[in-house]
């Protein structure tokens, strides 16, 4: 199966796979789990044709492990799963941050309850992984490519936060490779060539410098270095946000991911009916676009947060507005019997009514 970059009707899983290949990904490993499975299928079909490798790992732990190993050689690599599988990967994702290894990680999530996992993750310790949350298939293909660029630039894992709808919605989309300019110099990856040189390279979550007196690592120094790097990375990544109708908004509605498209549609209808209502969509969940969100709040009297969970992003919105304005959670868990994240509430009519309750 070939990689199609010209406009084609394809499901999100395939579009994301094509975007990964266009971005230079040549190693993918995964374990089947709904709604991530099709991404694995598409990568298994597409990678061999471009000289890449797709591995069926024996569990999510080994999926992230294999991707770790491939990424360590400087090969642009990715892995992914859904929320439960990401939970299994957490130790490795945190340690990948401490080892400074680029890796794109997909969470094709079920609903939106993985927000905390994504943004308060990746796991133990103070590591942080930047998070990109596309709203639809076309945006997903762009953010996928951005993810590979950020991973290489900052030598870090980057999380792409998708979901069931993204995976299974077919859109007509073109996946043109985006040129991000020259890749950063690679002075860290392994291919054996520095062995025996007196300067053999080391890639370790325990430390990045070789000892020249006694063996062993200095974790105090290393974790301090990691913290500095995390700060620099989060400060260096431009937070992304979409705003609409915020200049004179009385009520602001905040949403992310696929549900945000429905929320935006509801807000647009309410605007057409004359309501002074605005819409804000964080696109980078980490770094969270706090400043832009606070500016967008302007003179609004209330901020409403819609998400398909029991209230997670609402915390970050509250932090961003710093008490200036009340923040109300208007989301709720909405699932069908499968638990895969098909949400009966994703209906612009329902959302319009829910927002009207806030408008008072």
């Amino acid at each position, binding site marked *: 199966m070939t990689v199609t970059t010209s406009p084609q009707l394809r499901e999100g899983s395939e579009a994301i796979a094509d975007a990964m290949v266009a971005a230079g990904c040549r190693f993918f490993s995964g374990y089947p789990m709904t709604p991530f499975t099709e991404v694995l299928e598409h990568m298994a079909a597409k990678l061999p044709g471009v000289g890449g490798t797709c591995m069926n*790992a024996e569990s999510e732990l080994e999926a992230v*492990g294999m991707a770790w190993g491939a990424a360590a050689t400087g090969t642009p690599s990715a892995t992914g799963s859904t929320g439960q599988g990401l939970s299994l990967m957490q130790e490795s994702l945190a340690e990948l941050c401490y080892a400074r290894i680029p890796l794109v990680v997909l969470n094709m999530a079920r609903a939106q309850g993985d927000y905390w996992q994504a943004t308060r993750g990746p796991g133990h310790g103070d590591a942080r992984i930047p998070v990109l949350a596309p709203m639809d298939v076309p945006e997903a293909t762009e953010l996928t490519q951005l993810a590979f660029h950020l991973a290489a630039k900052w030598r870090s894992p980057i999380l792409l936060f998708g979901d069931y709808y993204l995976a299974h919605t077919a859109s007509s989309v073109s996946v043109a490779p985006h040129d991000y300019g020259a890749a950063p110099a690679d002075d860290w990856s392994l291919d054996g060539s520095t062995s025996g040189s007196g300067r053999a390279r080391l890639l370790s979550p325990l430390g990045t410098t070789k000892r020249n007196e006694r063996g062993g690592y200095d974790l105090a120094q290393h974790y301090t270095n990691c913290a500095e790097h995390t700060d620099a990375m989060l400060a260096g990544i431009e937070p992304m946000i979409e705003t609409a109708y915020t200049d004179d908004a009385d009520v602001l509605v905040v949403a992310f991911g696929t549900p945000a498209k429905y929320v935006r549609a509801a807000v647009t209808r309410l605007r057409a009916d004359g309501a002074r209502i605005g819409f804000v969509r964080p696109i980078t969940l980490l770094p969270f676009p706090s400043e832009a969100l606070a500016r967008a709040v302007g003179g609004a009297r209330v901020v409403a947060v819609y998400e398909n969970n029991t209230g997670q992003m609402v915390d970050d919105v509250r932090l961003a507005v710093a008490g200036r304005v009340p923040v109300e959670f208007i989301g709720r868990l909405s699932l069908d019997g499968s638990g895969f994240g098909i949400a009966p509430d994703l209906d612009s009519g329902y959302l319009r009514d829910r927002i009207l309750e806030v408008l008072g």
Partner: protein
Amino acid sequence: MTERYLPTAAPPEQPARLVDDFTPTLLDVGEHSLCPGCGEPIAMRAILEAIESLDAVQRAIGVFGIGCYTAFSNNLDVEVLQALHGRAPSLATGVKRAKPNTLVLTVQGDGDMVNEGLQEVLHTAARGERVTCFMLDNGVFGETGGHMTATTALGQRTKNTLDGRDAEQHGFPIRVSTLIAELEGAAYVARGAVNNAGNVARTKKMIRRALEVQELGLGFSFVEILTMCPTGWFVDTPEAPDYLTSTLAPVHAPGVLKDVGAKT
């Protein structure tokens, strides 16, 4: 009156050639904090010398697990990818699949490989990944103080089996080399030991053969190396070699279990 002891502070004045230097070439720093009498540096030396003896140094990448031996991972003149506890085989798989021309080896303890990482090594072997895994087996989790692992022998005293491992309570040891040898993807499986010079010499041959098997692309290769842990075994350092022979070796018997490429 002739001195009983010969001078050993400096090289000899009589014409002589150096046959063995203090450290192997690929070891940057010889000093370490491992216990007196620990077998792991002995095994590390053998592995490094085997890598050097093949014409593959500039393609070699070592993937390390977590254990006492991790102290070596940042002072070798070999490229090192440090993994998490039990996870070296999956990383090694990724490295080798991405860069098939490299010589990829793992260094793991028994706790790392047979407890935390049993799934990883079995699947890596079953897939026939062209990597070589080395297991330093001392029958205990050394780094955390000497606790029972899946390879601990029945009757062996450890920090959490002070009355000796009891089958009723603690079950039976796993012979991971035997399990691996059963898998079609495994091309070379052997057990060595480092408790005396003869065993070190035999083990060096196994290590070299395992790496050769990788270079020949025959499949997964594996060497289990029984090492002394006097601290974990509650014995004095000079008794540890005999303890290895009497306690670990009967359960994990040294020898070559499988060599599909051997000339008959």
